[in-house]
């Protein structure tokens, strides 16, 4: 299995940055949705791309994957995959407060994904003194058969993915999804440098 080869300190630092990003994103989301968002510490793990893809393809009740590319300065770029289970997708319209017929389920899924990805990554980027731009989010068709193919056709090669398990629980609605950040090796090297810089400032 591939690793980021992060030291214990680097991993702790990354986890803390992600916690803060998640906290601020949740706060923005809560204000936007006008509700309380229960925040669980997101777990992060680095996963071998091959293992991740075969795992996702085999997952029987995965309903939908929304993909969105992001890119910042200094070669920090990647693609965020938001993975939803069937039982959660139906709750999204309640969560977003959409009126019936206001938007299709596909559109709702894309909307919430884009909000989760961009709010989270904006705060994360700010902490590592970067700034992100985003591609339009896309709902991947026929996920089960096509996910591996989609990942193979990405505009950069990568073999390591950072998987951030997010559990959003909103008052009255529980809502789960996984955010998977696929990051090319070059970007990971850059992120490590930033982590080291932050750690050096502290010691």
């Amino acid at each position: 299995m591939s690793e980021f080869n992060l030291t214990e300190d680097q991993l702790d630092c990354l986890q803390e940055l992600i916690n803060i990003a998640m906290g601020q994103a949740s706060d923005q989301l809560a204000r936007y949705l006008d509700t309380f968002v229960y925040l669980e510490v997101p777990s992060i793990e680095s996963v071998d791309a091959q293992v991740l893809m075969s795992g996702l393809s085999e997952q029987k009740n995965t309903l939908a994957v929304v993909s969105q590319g992001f890119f910042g300065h200094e070669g920090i770029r990647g693609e965020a995959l938001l993975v939803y289970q069937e039982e959660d997708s139906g709750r999204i319209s309640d969560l977003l407060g959409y009126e019936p017929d206001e938007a299709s389920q596909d559109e709702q899924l894309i909307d919430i994904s884009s909000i989760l990805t961009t709010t989270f990554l904006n705060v994360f980027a700010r902490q590592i003194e970067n700034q992100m731009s985003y591609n339009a989010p896309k709902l991947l068709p026929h996920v089960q058969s096509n996910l591996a193919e989609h990942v193979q056709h990405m505009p950069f090669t990568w073999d390591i993915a950072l998987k951030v398990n997010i559990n959003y629980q909103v008052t009255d609605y529980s809502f789960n999804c996984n955010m998977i950040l696929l990051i090319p090796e070059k970007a990971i090297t850059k992120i490590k440098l930033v982590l080291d810089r932050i750690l050096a400032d502290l010691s």
Partner: protein
Amino acid sequence: MSPSVLICDDSNMARKQVLRSLPEHWQDSVQTATNGLEALKILRGGSIDILFLDLTMPGIDGVGVLQGIQKLKLKLNVFVISADIQPEMQSKVKALGAKEFIRKPVKAEILVNYLQQHDLL
């Protein structure tokens, strides 16, 4: 004389950030805890004046520590330092006796400002 301080956070980096933000002459009297259970054990000794407390921690979390302090009727100043910054959470911890709510990442000038406001510096 410098007060005795406890920093409770599961992240080593977060503990360092708080420590660095404290006045130079306090540094020697600072203890640390990596979770709620550890923190309560130290707090029971009764010698802690100021606690900097994270909320999201494995096991007993920050809210659990605040409840423990109330139960044990301990007298000390608690400053919550958290990534979970929603207004509901802020009012919840203040109701449980926290003096202030400080958002992560902690900044030295903000922390010092709060300490001055509460006549601790």
